[in-house]
């Protein structure tokens, strides 16, 4: 059964104090201002400026039972020049899952391979560090379109990857209406979860590593409807391939996500909330098809709400 923690006033106060320390300690910073939760823009920090950014991503719900998976990313970014910025992320997660998979067992996203699929899983862990490098070639305020490239290597105990992202941005209506598109590819090496194929595979999970390549197209539109406030919509088309290839013959699935966002920004801080829901998925191999339930793809990667992301940024 789900474990419950009883909070008293002291615990709430300690939690608030810890959060305050985290947000205002030596790691205060934020990225170029993010008006989207998932789609990146070409917005950059000025030379010599720092920002702290905290991401909280709730990936919520799978086929059965309950599934709460929260990824946290704490980041410092620094503007090396007005068109080149670097950042460092700390990645960590919390999970609370039970009987969530298509076959009604506790298995899937980042649950260790050795975990008993008949038991609840509740854990928090540090996932690793990511380095971010971003260079802007075209500025959307000066050029017909904005264009930037982004590289993000991640090193962790459970996963290692490198993300390559191209970012295009076009502004309209005195820069109040912003369209952005990202195309990214990420070769990835990760330790297997405890998920097994619900229909065909009786092989017990093991601690082997698997390789995959993720490719994604992200699109977003945001409109500043009043001072400080923007609303928008963003969507993702996520594709996964077996091994280090983008060959169609190696494709496992293609999944679609769509949802609204709202952004509030002032001189000192900003917050962005995006809520994406999985619309559906196409599968290209049987073991992926077996991980579908009521038209949605779960397996060891996706969720129904994928995801609910809050970003809070603070420049200094």
């Amino acid at each position, binding site marked *: 059964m*789900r*474990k*419950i*923690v*009883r*909070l*008293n006033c002291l*615990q*709430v106060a300690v*939690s*608030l104090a*810890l*959060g*305050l320390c*985290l*947000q*205002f300690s030596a790691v205060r910073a934020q990225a170029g*201002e993010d008006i989207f939760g998932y789609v990146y823009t070409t917005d950059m*920090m*000025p*030379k010599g*400026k720092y920002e702290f950014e*905290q991401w*909280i991503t709730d990936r919520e719900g799978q086929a059965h039972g309950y599934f*709460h998976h*929260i990824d*946290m990313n704490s980041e410092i970014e620094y*503007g090396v020049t*007005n068109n080149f910025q670097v950042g460092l992320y700390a990645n960590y997660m*919390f999970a*609370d899952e039970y009987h969530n998979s298509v076959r009604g067992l506790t298995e899937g996203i980042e649950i260790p391979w050795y975990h008993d699929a008949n038991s609840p899983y*509740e854990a*928090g862990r540090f996932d690793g560090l990511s380095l971010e490098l971003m260079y802007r070639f075209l*500025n959307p*305020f*000066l050029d017909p379109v904005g264009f930037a490239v982004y590289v993000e290597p991640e090193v962790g105990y459970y996963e290692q990857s490198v993300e390559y992202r191209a970012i295009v941005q076009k502004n309209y209506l*005195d*820069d*109040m209406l912003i369209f952005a598109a990202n195309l990214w590819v990420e070769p990835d090496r990760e330790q297997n979860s405890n998920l097994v194929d619900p229909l065909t595979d009786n092989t017990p999970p093991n601690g082997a590593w698997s390789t995959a390549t993720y490719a994604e197209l992200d699109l977003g539109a945001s409109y500043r409807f009043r*001072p*400080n406030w923007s609303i928008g919509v963003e969507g993702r088309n996520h594709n996964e391939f077996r091994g280090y290839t983008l060959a169609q013959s190696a494709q496992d699935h293609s999944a679609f996500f769509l949802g609204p966002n709202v952004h509030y*920004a*002032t*001189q*000192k*801080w900003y*917050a962005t909330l995006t809520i994406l829901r999985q619309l559906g998925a196409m599968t290209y191999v049987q073991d992926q098809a077996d991980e579908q339930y009521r038209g949605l793809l779960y397996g060891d990667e996706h969720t129904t709400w994928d995801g609910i992301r*809050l970003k*809070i940024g*603070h*420049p200094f």
Partner: protein
Amino acid sequence: MRTSKIELALLALLGPTVAFTAHAEVYMTPEQAVQVIFPGMKMTKTSTTLTDDEVKLIEKLSDEDVRSKKLIMWRNSSGDVVYIDQVLGKHEFITIAAGFTSDGKIKDIEVLEYRETYGSEVRRPAWRSQFVGKTVKNALKLGKDVKNISGATLSSLHITNGVRRLAVTNEVISERHKQ
């Protein structure tokens, strides 16, 4: 009160956000700006409303949208004028003052309110001085006869566009007085 460890973690991270507050950076009042641009001159506050035809003409000649038909200005008997106007910042409006002599030349511009995270360099005299002496016959475009401030591009762009619109507006209003 019952909650999970995940909710406890969220509370820790989200709770402190209420501690953040924004504050306005108001550098001078419109009256102060008028005196800085035309020191010692007796200027009288007035306002007028642009007609639809004037709005169309201003938008055509300046290539900028007119957000408000109502104009707030300070004038003197010699025909010098200071307009108080707002342009879009990244988060909020930037309030500017643009002063014109009776022959249509820009006397000076001032930034009255600026509440953006970055880009306050637009207040520096060295950048604002680029506008002095220019008229509606100049391009008044960022990257042409007005230099960009790298790292403050949006503010530089919108203030430049706003001043160009006001220069055209001043010509249109001057034509009114000649008729």
